[in-house]
Every structure is written in C-alpha cells, then in structure tokens.
C-alpha cells in the first residue's frame, strides 16, 4: 500500500524536473491555504450571523409575517425539482437515509430552537423526496412534468404576489428566476430553432436575426433594455420589476436554447424525415414526433448546462434594483452592526452557490449517462 502510493507519488508528482518544482511550490502553498481557511472557520469566524440573517438571505425583504407564502413556493419548487431528478435518477431507500443529514444540516443552520422552521424544512425535504420517488417509480408521471412545472410556477406566482412582487428576493428569487427562465426559454427556443429552418424566408430572417442579436450582446444589457422598454410599450400594465427581469432573462436565454436545439436538429439524419414523409405524415407531425424528440435527446446535457448558466447569472438582476441571493448578502453587510462579517457572509454565499451548481452539474452527468444508455 505505502509502496504503491510512494510509486504513484514519484510518478505523478516528481516525474520530471519541472513537476518537482511545481509540486514543491504548489502542494505546500495549497496546504497552507487550506490550513488557514479551516482554522479561521473553526476559531476566528463568528457564524452566528448566518442563522440571524437567514431569512433575508433566503427571501430578501419579503415580510416576515407573510413567510408562509414563501414556504408554499419552496415546497412546490421542491416537488418539481425532485420530480425532475426522478426522471433520470432512480430513487432508492438509501437516498431517503441520505436526506436525513441534509435535513439536520439545514435545521442546524436555521436554528433548532425554532421548531416551526425545523418542521417546515422537514416538509420541504419530504416533498422533494416524494416528487423524486413518484417520478422514478411511475414513469407515466414524467410526461406530465412540463405541464406540471407550468402549473407549479403559476401557483407560486399566485401565492407570492399579494404582498407585492417588488418584495421578492434572496435565494428564492434566484431560484424562481432560474426556473421561470429555464421553463419558458425552452418552448420559445424550440420555436426559434424551427423558425430558423423554415422554408419561408421572412420567418427565417426574423429568427436568425433575433438569435444572432441576442447572442452578440451582454445579458445585463438585454435585461436593462427590457426593463426600461416594457413600461413604454405597455404603460397600462405596470409590470413589476421582477416580471420584467424574468422577461429579459427569458428573451436572452431563448436565443441560446435555440442554438442548442438547432445543433440537435442538425444531428437527426435526413433519412428520419424521409421515412416519415414516405409514410404520408404531415410536416408538423414529423417535426413534433420524429425530429424534435431525437434532437432534444442529443442536446439535453448542454441545455442543463444552460440552466446552471442562468442560475449563476441571476445576480445581474441587481442592475434593475432586485435583491437576489448575492445582493441580499451585501445588504446584510451594509448594516453597520454586521460590517465586520464580510468573510462569514461571503463564505456562506460561495458555499451555497457551489452546492447548487454542483447539484445541477451532477444531474447533467446523470442525464448524459441515462441518455447514452437509452439510445444504444
């Protein structure tokens, strides 16, 4: 064992003179940094700020007495995400076991003395596990996932709207923005991709132009433009900033979805269309039932990557005055009482972003494996 690891070390870390140099500088450097970070986290850091400001981090300035609305939204999101996971990753008993420590961790973070929150966290995790288990045990349920997501998002809007959409914030806002953008940009992107291949040149030009323009400008620019344009274009509606931000994100990311879908459409062999045509199927049926499913299959991994991209870009909504997760952290630090807790708050933000990002990446991997197995 020791001999083998010595051999591995020699081979991989001290094989060539340059490797020796690199190993001798990098390894101690990294170890020193890890040591510093851990010792700070365990001794110097004052973590009490996290449970104290957790509500703001999670839901921003949403009124505390209306928090139950946010909880309903969170539970709906948990069911939908669980069901999405269940489509590709079978739920097993040991997973239920693994969710218990997750619950314990979240409960510890929220403060165990607050019994209501501990219970609500349990409900959320149970909802997640429930969605996961149902979708993995009963395959027909999966077909309903897309309509269910639409209904779920509408329900969330209905529940969260009364106190005022201007109050939405925190991690919940980041997640909602990501979900709405991901769910809406998919059908729009698919339509754009087909439009770009249309035999009507007018439609083809419009779609191509739209996609190219969106892909040539920064997201933050599109979001800002949409935000200032909507009140001019639809003065009678007075749409909330949140909704305008979601529209901006959706319009921007639809162009990217369209490009992914287009590459998938190109990957479907001509023979598929020809066979369907020779059977007398209409072009609409051919696109919907033969071409699109095969195209989507190819591009599911990049589409999931796109969701991660949306989530990581969500902080940009500060430009239109929204308080997403990152901005909520900064807001807490703006309070003079907490001015010296920068590192604690940013560590928490970093870890949370990292965890959510890893989760999405993990799902993408599973999806890839799942699809590779299915296509043969």
């Amino acid at each position, binding site marked *: 064992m020791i001999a083998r690891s010595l051999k591995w070390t020699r081979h991989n870390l001290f094989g060539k003179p340059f490797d020796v140099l690199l190993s001798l500088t990098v390894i101690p450097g990294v170890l020193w940094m890890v040591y510093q970070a851990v010792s700070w986290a365990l001794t110097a850091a004052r973590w009490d700020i996290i449970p104290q400001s957790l509500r703001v981090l999670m839901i921003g300035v949403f009124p505390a007495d209306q928090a139950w609305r946010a909880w309903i939204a969170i539970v709906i999101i948990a069911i939908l995400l669980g069901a999405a996971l269940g489509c590709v990753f079978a739920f097993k008993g040991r997973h239920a076991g693994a969710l218990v420590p997750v619950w314990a961790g979240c409960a510890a973070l929220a403060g165990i003395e607050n019994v209501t929150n501990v219970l609500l966290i349990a409900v959320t995790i149970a909802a997640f596990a429930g969605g996961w288990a149902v979708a993995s045990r009963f395959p027909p349920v999966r077909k309903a996932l897309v309509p269910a997501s639409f209904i779920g998002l509408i329900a969330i809007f209905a529940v969260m709207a009364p106190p005022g959409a201007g109050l939405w914030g925190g991690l919940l806002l980041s997640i909602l923005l990501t979900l709405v953008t991901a769910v809406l940009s998919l059908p729009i992107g698919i339509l754009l991709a087909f439009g770009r291949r249309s035999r009507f040149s007018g439609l083809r030009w419009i779609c191509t132009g739209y996609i190219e323009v969106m892909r040539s400008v920064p997201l933050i620019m599109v979001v800002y433009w949409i935000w200032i344009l909507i009140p001019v274009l639809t003065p009678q509606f007075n749409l909330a900033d949140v909704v305008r931000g979601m529209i901006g994100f959706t319009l921007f990311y639809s162009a990217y979805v369209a490009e992914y879908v287009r590459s998938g459409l190109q990957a479907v*062999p001509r*023979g*598929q269309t*020809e*066979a*369907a*045509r*020779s*059977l*007398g*199927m*209409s072009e609409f*049926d051919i696109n919907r*039932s*033969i071409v699109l*499913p*095969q195209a989507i*299959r190819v591009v599911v991994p990049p589409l999931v990557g796109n969701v991660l991209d949306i989530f990581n870009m969500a902080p940009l909504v500060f430009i239109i005055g929204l308080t997403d997760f990152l901005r909520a952290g900064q807001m807490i630090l703006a309070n003079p009482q907490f001015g010296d807790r920068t590192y604690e708050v940013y560590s928490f933000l970093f870890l949370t972003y990292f965890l959510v990002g890893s989760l999405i990446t993990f799902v993408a991997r599973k999806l890839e494996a799942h699809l590779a197995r299915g*296509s*043969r």
Partner: protein
Amino acid sequence: MNAIVEMKNLNKFYGSHHVLKNIDLSVERGEVVVVLGASGSGKSTLIRCVNGLEMYQNGSLLVDGYPMPVEEDRRLGGESELAAIRKGVGMVFQQFNLFPHKTVVENITIAPMRVRKKTRAEAEATALKLLDRVGLTEHAHKYPGQLSGGQQQRVAIARSLAMEPHLMLFDEPTSALDPEMIGEVLDVMRELARDGMTMMIVTHEMNFAREVADRIIYIDQGSILEVGKPDAFFDNPQNERARSFLARVLKH
C-alpha cells in the same frame, strides 16, 4: 389503362447536372419492376421521384391517379396531391430509417394513427398481424437498436405495409445487410410479390431480380436504355452497355 405509375418525358436536374433524361415509364398494377444500373446512374432518384422525395423539373408523373406536381408548383405550395400520393405509396430504404426513439410497435402504428386516424387498438392489432407476417412477433416491444439489420429491415417493411399501400418502393433494401441476413428480407419481398403487391425495386441481387421481376428496367446515366422480360434481359441483352453491365455484375 391500369397503370399505377405513369412517367412521361420526365426530366430531373441537380443544378446543371441532368440526372434523369426524358424518362417514359409506366408500371401496371400488380407488376414487379426491377430497376438495374451502375452506381450513380439515377436508380434511386428515379424511384424517389415516385413518392416525391425528389422533385422533378419537367415532364409529367401520375401516381395512383394523382398528378405529382413539378418542382416549381411544389415551391409555390401546391403540395395537396403529395399527401394523397404518399398515403398510398410505401418505401423501404437501404438504411432502414426506423425511428430509434420508438419501439417496433410504435414505429408501425404512428403513421396509421396520425395519417389514417385509426385508433390505437386498431393500429396495434394490424401491427401485430404484420409483425407475425414478417416473423417478428416476439420483438414487438423492443427498440430498433436492439434488433439485427435484417430484423430492422423487416420491421421497416411492416411499417410501410401498415399504411396499406398500393405500391411499394424498395431502394437497395439489402445493400446494408450482412450476407447471412439478406435471405430473410428477400423472402418477405418474395411473398409480397406473390400476394400481388405492385413493387418497384432497386437491387443488386441479380438472382432475386430475375426470379421476382415481371420486367427489368436498365438505366444508365439517367436514361432508360433497355426494358424487357427478365429472361430476355439476362440471357440476351440488346443494349451494348447493358451487356457490359451484366458481364461485370454477374462475374462476382
């Protein structure tokens, strides 16, 4: 006249490349026509014109009583006859072209359900009958990727038959198969011929051609050079090029 396909003076170009030249050809109902010719001579193009997968530029083509529109009309949206023609004309491809994301039964039932508006139960009953006919009943719920080439091609034939076509087009249906699987596909085609199906077949299987064909069409560089009964064509070809073509392919 009892012709199901009638081509008159049909011409097809790819850009400036003249691929089919003044084709005159009619196929009677119940007839089996085999199209022979060297690679690149235009065999595929010829039979793909019949169900409109390729467009022709001038001449006329009548399929099952419907006039196939020329390219110009199709570009202007005159495609209503096309749908009617395709309902009645089946096609089997060299690469099978089964739908990989659908099971064997789904492959066979989708067109009858969508195009002929049959119920699922009706369509499935027909599918199972057809699968029995091509000897694949036990594979009904597998995906195409789980079948051998010969099995896939038999499913493709069943898929076409499910639309109850009046005419079947075959474009080199055995060329992508391992030698040991060719026989099973040819057997199915033989049986179809015996049952009276009208067929236009492009193939390189000379023995099979001689056996099932009512008529052989020899095509070279886009022109039909010889038409004849199989025995006459194989034993005593009139055209010089046909003779050298046969000398080449029969040597192997």
